[in-house]
């Protein structure tokens, strides 16, 4: 009697200890994901789990570099997916940390804006290493009371007129902003792509940033830093994201932003699948889910960025009136032509030459610039 009771209790204990193991077999399984904070909200993750049975474990990364490090941790088989920004994606592709995916398995792929189907930051040699997600431009933000006349060019953040009142992001990729400005204003340098810079072009961009440094109040690290700089009049002009503009306007601060005539850099995030994932089935289900117009619209409004699925526009307006136009989700193709999306600088210049400055050099130059 006693023995049988013990045996029964032991069975129950084992069953209680491993309910997850039993459940995993029945349903889709688990996806361990690295994402930007705000990219895995219950609003669209809970319905996904309900519909597919795939559960999601989120790990939030604080920077592109941290995400790359996380993807490589534990031999690369700890995480199944990552929401990589353009300055991380090529590192993951060339590092063989992620695998190609087949866009024909994603029903909404055909509705993506033309610029987002095969962008160079996630498509290499015709292979798609992930599916584009959302994007946003790096805009020129200014205080309408102090900055007159209204700026139309990035020249405003390189001119001594606003000395000590300028702020730009504390990020090596900022060198591309300088390169973009030089690409449009100094044809003799022959810059074709702000992320593919040979040593001469790179040095020109860095020396422009060195000349800009005395004008800088602060290199901002967090979006909230820039918001506080603008609110307290410590900065009146600078490079920004739409998120800061929207927050400041909601706080009744006198600010405006624009994409200047030279164009702008921008970020484009991609959901990528680990080369060593054990759950490809769930990964594809997630890629399909996150591309649907409704989820695209939800995330766009939650985070303040622009969906790549052109069908999301109508739903955005339904969720928040005027948001589609506010985030340029319905902009024509020529709008995207002026946005140069972040991509990891690598030694391969893309024109057969291999003398371009890679990201390590960018990072070193940035540390030296800040001094």
């Amino acid at each position, binding site marked *: 009697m006693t023995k049988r009771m013990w045996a029964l209790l032991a069975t129950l204990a084992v069953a209680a200890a491993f309910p997850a193991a039993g459940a995993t077999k029945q349903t889709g399984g688990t996806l361990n994901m690295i994402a930007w904070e705000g990219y895995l909200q219950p609003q669209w993750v809970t319905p996904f789990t309900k519909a597919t049975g795939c559960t999601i474990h989120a790990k939030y990364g604080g920077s592109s570099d941290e995400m790359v490090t996380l993807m*490589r941790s534990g031999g690369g088989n700890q995480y199944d997916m990552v929401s990589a920004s353009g300055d991380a994606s090529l590192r993951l592709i060339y590092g063989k940390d992620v695998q190609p995916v087949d866009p024909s398995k994603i029903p909404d792929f055909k509705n993506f804006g033309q610029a987002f189907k095969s962008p160079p930051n996630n498509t290499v040699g015709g292979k798609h290493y992930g599916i584009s997600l959302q994007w946003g431009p790096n805009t020129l933000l200014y205080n309408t009371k102090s900055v007159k006349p209204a700026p139309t060019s990035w020249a405003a953040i390189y001119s001594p007129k606003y000395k000590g009142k300028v702020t730009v992001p504390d990020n090596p990729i900022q060198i591309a902003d300088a390169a973009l400005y030089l690409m449009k204003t100094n044809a003799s340098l022959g810059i074709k792509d702000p992320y593919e810079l040979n040593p001469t072009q790179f040095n020109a961009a860095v020396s422009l940033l060195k000349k800009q440094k005395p004008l800088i109040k602060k290199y901002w690290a967090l979006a909230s830093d820039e918001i506080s700089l603008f609110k307290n009049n410590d900065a009146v002009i600078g490079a920004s994201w739409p998120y800061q503009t929207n927050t400041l306007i909601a706080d009744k601060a006198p600010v405006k932003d624009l994409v200047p005539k030279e164009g702008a850099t921008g970020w484009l995030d991609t959901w990528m699948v680990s080369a060593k994932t054990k759950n490809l089935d769930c990964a594809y289900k997630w890629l399909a889910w996150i591309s649907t117009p409704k989820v695209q619209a939800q995330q766009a409004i939650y985070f303040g960025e622009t969906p790549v699925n052109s069908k999301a526009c109508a739903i955005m307006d339904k969720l928040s009136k005027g948001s589609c136009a506010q985030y340029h989700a319905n902009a024509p193709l020529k709008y995207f032509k002026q946005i140069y999306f972040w991509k990891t600088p690598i030694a391969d210049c893309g024109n057969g030459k291999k003398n371009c400055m890679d990201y390590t050099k960018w990072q070193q130059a940035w540390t030296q610039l800040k001094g």
Partner: protein
Amino acid sequence: MAAGLDPTQGLSNGVGARRRFGGALWRRPWLKGAALLSPPVLGFLLIYVAALVALFVYAFWTVDPFTSLTIHSWTLDNFRELWHGSTYHTVAFRTVSIAAAVTVTDAIIAFPFAYLMARLAGPRTRALLFILVLLPLWASYLARVYAWRLILNSDGLLNWSLHKVGLPSAGIAYTNTAMWIVFSYIWLPFMILPVYASLERIPHSYIEASRDLGAKGGRTLRSVILPLALPGVVAGSIFTFSLTLGDYITPVLVGGASSQFIGNVVYDSVNQASNLPFGAAFAVVPVVVMGIYLLAARKLGAFDAL
């Protein structure tokens, strides 16, 4: 079964073993000391020394620039880059000089305050002053730094007050001056307490003797109180200097365009470049600086009171 239940036998066995053990410890006092000390010493070795050793070892490795994987072969490249890169000299020099400026500032502010607490205040005032010194430590470090940002920024409390009395704005928000002020404020309690302890320990009879010998207030201060309080000042300076030396949050929050500390470069090389070995190599610099500082402090008698 019967033997196991015999209470006397079990007891005598246990007592015998304990007595033998106790006797062994009594005969060899060093054994007792070793047994008592070994757990904390092992813990210390694991937590402090192992981390430092790992740091040193990493400093001699490098990272493959493309795959970000650590290459486990010995090289001096990181130190060579530190030695030749003028940026790193600037950053190290800035860190050490601000740490020194903060230390001097805190010593100058702390001394009269500690003197007031130790020698002039009554018991009730002293308790109140103690609370005042310790109160800021109860609030979060971050909250206090952010509070300073609100005071110093262009439309902040400082400029508002200056305008009220008809003075021009002070543009010290996001500068190295702002860092110096904030650091001095944050680490001040760590200077006041050791100085207070050293001042309180000076017997009153010494001061009376000095007066009996005809010394005026200034002379007593210079020849009696200051030399006796010096170890306390040096002990406090170890806190303020090393805490400033290792900080990286205040430079991010209140620093300006040229405000990187050693800690910020370490943080960036680990988080932006995934270059832990280079970060480790640079982190050796404050360890060396502190080593030299502690040796100098020992010469000045900072550890005599311990």
